[in-house]
């Protein structure tokens, strides 16, 4: 048996609520265990060394999207990152840039996602507005359902927003998560919105035509969503629909 490694975690610490606090990197040391993820290590650190350490988690299985942070320069989910991936045994943790900082590694992605959903109207606009709960829903082709399900896998972790230099440069840009969700409703046959309606929402410099194809979203998405293809699809779709305006 190899001797267990000693890991060094360099963690960003700052409480914006405390006027006397200053942002700093603090080192923590912990013994690696088999199959350890950054998420497990953080919980252990909080339990045994520093109960004031702030970070978010719910599901510990890559489903809730809460534990996104910047791990050694790459934004990703802490629960899906094995410490064994870092041969140097040194791991730096920073909060996701581009979001309101709650404290330490915790950022307010919820507020961002809610504002985005309201701005882009990211909910189904049914073609049939008559409310009748006894009516049987129209069937959907399995291929269409599979396509929608693929895009529904987004966990709103905010990694694509942090990995996007365009978004960092232009705060009003909707980012990959917004475009992904628009693409999801655009593909949905139950949604009454036309290409023209979507053009008025994302057919501008803050929408699909503001994307400079830097592909940070594509390369960092922890759910491996097809951002590149979806944004290209929307770009083509919006570019064609412009002739009807």
């Amino acid at each position, binding site marked *: 048996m190899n001797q267990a490694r000693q890991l060094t975690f360099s963690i960003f610490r700052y409480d914006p609520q405390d006027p006397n606090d200053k942002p700093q990197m603090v080192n923590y040391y912990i013994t690696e265990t088999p199959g350890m993820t950054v998420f497990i290590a953080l919980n252990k650190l909080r339990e045994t060394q520093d109960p004031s350490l702030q970070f978010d988690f719910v599901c510990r299985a890559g489903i809730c999207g809460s534990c996104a942070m910047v791990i050694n*320069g790459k934004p990703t989910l802490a629960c899906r990152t094995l410490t064994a991936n870092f041969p140097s045994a040194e791991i730096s943790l920073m909060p996701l840039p581009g979001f309101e900082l709650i404290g330490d590694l915790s950022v307010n992605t919820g507020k961002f996602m809610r504002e985005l959903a309201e701005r882009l109207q990211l909910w189904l606009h049914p073609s049939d507005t008559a409310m009748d709960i006894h009516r049987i829903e129209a069937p959907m082709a399995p291929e269409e359902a599979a396509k929608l399900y693929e895009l529904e896998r987004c966990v709103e972790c905010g990694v694509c927003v942090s990995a996007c230099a365009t978004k*960092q440069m232009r705060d009003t840009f909707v980012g990959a998560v917004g475009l992904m969700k628009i693409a999801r409703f655009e593909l949905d046959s139950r949604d009454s919105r036309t290409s023209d309606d979507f*053009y008025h929402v994302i057919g*501008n*410099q803050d929408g699909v*035509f503001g994307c400079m194809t830097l592909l940070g979203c594509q*390369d960092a998405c922890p759910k491996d969503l097809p951002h590149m293809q979806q944004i*290209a699809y929307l770009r*083509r779709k919006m570019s064609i629909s412009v002739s009807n305006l």
Partner: protein
Amino acid sequence: MAANPLPAKAVLLTDKPRGFSHPKWAARADRLQSVTGVLLGLFLIMHLHFESSILLGKEAFYQVAQFLEGGIFSETGHGYPILTQVFSAFMLLIVVVHAVFALRRFPSQIGQWRALRQQMKFLPHEDTHIWFWQMVSGFLLFFLVPVHLFAMMTNPEIGPHLSAERVVHHNAWMLYVLLLPAVTVHAIFGLYRVSVKWGLTTKRFALLKFAKVLIAYLLVLGVASLLTYIIIGRSLSLPVVPFVPGL
């Protein structure tokens, strides 16, 4: 749908925007930037190959130049340099259109520049770095390309001796040393980006690798041609006599 809650005045103000303010220009700008970029990129690949025919000898380059100047349509077999002038003016127009729409992408405020640099430092990412260098090279090209095109419009004579004279005795080598790497990097990565931007390919990493190989190849080709012109130019005595084939 709910009634429009905007007051009448606001409706009046936003009613039927004209010209570039019309929302359709967002899509048009993106398309025009890509189309002009592809035209310029493909032209560059051909251009570098045509002028590198000097590597095969003066005779080869002479024939290529005469052919492109429309030599087959003249009785003497000599081309018409005015074609070079007209084509240069046309390329300048394409460059202007491309530049107008590509300008949207530049960080126009110091805050945006800082955000970009900080992002690149904080989250190293290859495609973001590539875009950064494309932006820097694009900025240089604002100044370098018009100089080159202006020279071709005012002094369109192309030939093994005349081009070598331009490179050495008119000091065009200084321009080309900067222009060659800037335009090659900008054009080839630009073609790569257009392909992934519009979804023309799904094999992104293979394409990126191909783009890098192509850049290396074009740089070698360009540098070799430039060196050849410099060697020819230094061997010429002034005043330069145009090359005559078969002598």
